[in-house]
């Protein structure tokens, strides 16, 4: 069920990005509505991750504009984007390997907390209270993502599936309104994917909008309310999953054109 207010939360218009002579994205527009799960699919090299990187401030687009809930994100640095309420995970997991699972999630609270050097050195009452709240929230989020037992394990030593979910927990710690997931199910077996699916549905039910890059078609089609398809840096289709699946351009992009025709 989508919430009553499904006005656009994120709208990217006319995004282009070139690397040297290669057009990674040309004139791509995408809209993510409040409270939905939006799938972003396309063959390898279609520009999905590039779009994520532009969205989260890692790259600046050559052209185009990003609006997030009435705020212009274009050209903002990654930490500012996070402060605006967009959190992300990475295709190749990027945890803080030497820190424990709990500490990883605690880092996620950084952007919503304020203690500075003086607070830390003098351990003011404010800092102590804040620190306790950080630990409490981090434990809650580990619970939420099914990682309770892993709190004190070093992130680097965690099994693969746990690392994926820990990245989600860390992203959720920043209190995002939009959570952008880059292939969260990559490398997972059927059971792990099932657990992940439940988690993502729970996150959405709790009011976080999701933007999802995923190659697992069954997963993305069953989760998403709308799907956008990229191919060679261009948007070739968008709409409801069932309609997109039947779109001849999408079929061609995934299966190749029929040589007989």
């Amino acid at each position, binding site marked *: 069920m989508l919430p009553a207010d499904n006005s656009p939360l994120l709208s990217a218009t006319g995004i282009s990005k070139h690397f040297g002579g290669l057009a990674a994205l040309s004139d791509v527009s995408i809209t993510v509505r409040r409270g939905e799960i939006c799938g972003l699919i396309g063959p390898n090299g279609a520009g999905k991750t590039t779009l994520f990187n532009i969205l*989260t*401030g*890692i790259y600046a687009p050559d052209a185009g504009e990003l609006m997030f809930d009435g705020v212009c994100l274009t050209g903002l*640095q*990654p*930490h500012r*984007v*996070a*402060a605006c309420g967009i*959190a*992300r995970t*990475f295709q190749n997991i*990027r*945890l*803080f*390997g*030497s*820190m*424990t699972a709990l*500490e990883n999630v*605690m*880092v*996620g*609270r*950084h*952007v*919503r*907390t304020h*203690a*500075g*050097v003086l*607070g*830390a*050195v003098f*351990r003011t009452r404010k*800092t102590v209270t*804040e*620190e306790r709240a*950080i630990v409490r929230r981090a434990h809650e989020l580990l619970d939420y993502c099914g990682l309770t037992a*892993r709190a*004190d*394990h*070093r992130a680097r*030593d965690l099994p693969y599936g746990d690392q994926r979910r820990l990245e989600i927990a*860390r*992203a959720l710690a*920043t209190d995002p309104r939009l959570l952008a997931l880059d292939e969260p199910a990559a490398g997972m077996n059927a059971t792990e994917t099932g657990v992940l699916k439940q988690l993502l549905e729970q996150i959405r039910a709790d009011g976080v909008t999701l933007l999802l890059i995923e190659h697992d078609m069954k997963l993305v089609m069953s989760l998403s309310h709308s799907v956008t398809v990229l191919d060679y840096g261009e948007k070739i289709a968008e709409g409801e999953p069932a309609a997109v699946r039947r779109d001849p351009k999408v079929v061609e992009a995934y299966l190749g054109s029929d040589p007989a025709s």
Partner: protein
Amino acid sequence: MSNFLSTLQARDARRWIAWAGLALLLLAAPFLIEALLGRAWVRIADVALLFIMLALGLNIVVGFAGLLDLGYIAFFAVGAYSYALLASPQFDIHWPFLVVLPLSAAVAGFFGILLGAPTLRLRGDYLAIVTLGFGEIIRVFLNNLNRPFNITNGPQGITLIDPLQAGSFSLAQTHTFAGLTITPIHSYYFVFLACAVLSILISLRLENSRIGRAWAAIRDDELAAASTGINTRNMKLLAFAMGATFGGVAGGLFASFQGFVSPESFHLLDSIMVLCMVVLGGMGNVGGVVLGAVLLTALPEALRYIGPLQQRWFDTVFVDPSDLRMLLFGLALVLMMLLRPEGLWPSRRRRTVEKSRAAG
């Protein structure tokens, strides 16, 4: 329940006794050292305390934030010269140390930002090269700022620097207190001890704070840290500034202790030495860094005794004593790194065999 409480109290009491014992030992140390090893070693203990401050400062940059800095001694130099210029006959300025010392720290901190700002995009080897250059630039400047206007007095250095003094009480004089004769090297020991303990406390509190976690995150994965909402630019500048401040305080204390500074004291080798203390002790672990600083200050001094042994055992001198000393020092470093690659006392984060792994 009452049983639990009593064991808790017993453990607490034991811990207090241990801390009190350590405090007493540290306070009595200069007198014990003098009685056992001679006065020269009290001076070495003073220097070791200064190096603890330096190594803890560098540990913030290298150990906590993961930014390799090969020019760290420059901040020590900036602190020392700031103190020297504001409390010596050089310009006939004699401000009280309570003003000059914080000022030295602030100036060094400013230089930390000055070095940090242009190197924000650099990491690893590239950062190391730039910081190495920075360290040398500072030294060369100090060496040459005697013409056309004489500021630093060039290679001759600045002499007759004011000791730490308040009113008529000066640490440069010998005092008697409760039957103990307290010479300047003893007095300075206590001042340096207080500063070193303070540095340890600040380091520990920073490490286990929001700031410390942000530094660790940047060290592990800068891009992920930025995407998680950490302002990596500010946090890296903060690390440089904090580290430099420690160096600046140590430098100011060094100037007042020696009464003399010259560019000779701030060579690349000194930067490397401080880095060795951090790496060898256990990068990122405050206890390890302290241990590294003490060991690497004491070891070269202890090796001075080897030279005469040669003469006594073999009746002849095979290797020049000072060469032999450095040879053995190098050998000791190589052996320590081979046997304990993560440092003598590694930080929990860097240990290869992890408790949690065994449990999971």
